[in-house]
């Protein structure tokens, strides 16, 4: 009843259970955090809009992406993955989401940023519907914890419109 083996077994079981409990509590503590992020995205210039050889439209933009995501970080945050997506509706697709830019934010200090950049990934339509297309630019962020549940949120900026003709 009090052999070494028995005691070791109990000790290990309790240790694993405690570790699991601590991870759950750590994850729950994330729900106490109420983030107050801010974001500002502007399209500075449409560089070009043309039709690819395969028939799909593609556009190149220069943008300014500024945000302050410091309040999304908690003690239990490993990194925050942030990306900017263009979102629009066409006749064929009721939702198109295209990621134009992303970044991995490894620490709270780097969570306040301002980037002046062209789109990192190609803004290509599934078709040739981009002329005169209205679209939103949504900044999404996914908080990846050191342990536990992942959280995500976004800020939508509406009112963008692409040129009526190829440029």
């Amino acid at each position, binding site marked *: 009843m009090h052999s070494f083996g028995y005691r070791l077994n109990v000790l290990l079981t309790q240790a694993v259970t405690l570790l699991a409990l601590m991870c759950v509590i750590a994850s729950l503590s994330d729900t106490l955090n109420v983030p107050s992020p801010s974001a500002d995205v502007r399209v500075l210039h449409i560089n070009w809009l043309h039709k690819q050889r395969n028939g799909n439209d593609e556009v190149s933009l220069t943008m300014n992406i500024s945000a302050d995501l410091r309040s999304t970080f908690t003690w239990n945050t490993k990194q925050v993955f942030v990306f900017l997506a263009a979102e629009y509706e066409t006749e064929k697709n009721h*939702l198109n*989401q*295209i990621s134009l830019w992303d970044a991995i934010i490894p620490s709270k200090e780097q969570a306040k940023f301002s980037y002046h950049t062209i789109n990192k990934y190609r803004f290509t339509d599934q078709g040739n519907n981009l002329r005169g297309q209205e679209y939103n630019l949504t900044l999404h962020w996914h908080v990846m914890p050191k342990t536990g549940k992942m959280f995500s949120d976004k800020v939508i900026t509406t009112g963008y419109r692409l040129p009526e003709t190829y440029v």
Partner: protein
Amino acid sequence: MGFIKDAMQPAGSLRARPLLTQIITLEEDPLNLTQGDILFLHMNEDPIRAGDIVVFNIKGKTIPVVHRVIQVHEQQNNKEIYVLTKGDINKKDDRLGGIYGSGQLWLQRQHIMGRAIGFLPYEGWVTIVLTENPIVKYVLIGALSLVLITSKDRGAKQNSRLV
């Protein structure tokens, strides 16, 4: 990328959707996760949206891939969905990077097996050590068997006294 361990536990909901786990085995994981972490996966009816981390299988390739969705094209009336994925730290998306099958441009609903919803750090190391050094497995099983064989059967001793 990693490989799926067969841990399937019902997720406690009425329809008992299975909760899968995946262990991050690569030293440099495409999602910038640490080797040895466990990723919890879950699949439900929620539509797949940009930013989701999904697990998918490619025809002809044995290892499932865990990457993030960067493009979504969902047809009117939810008829079909076309998804493009990419590992966060990879420069190329999975189509250009050769992860998809040859000629495959998109992922569709039938390819996607689950969505990542959380992490548990370090717990994957036991499995990694056991898998990469099978000798540890044999040593452990041997040691446990030895303990079992040499342990005194106290129940038998009690019974013999009552006789």
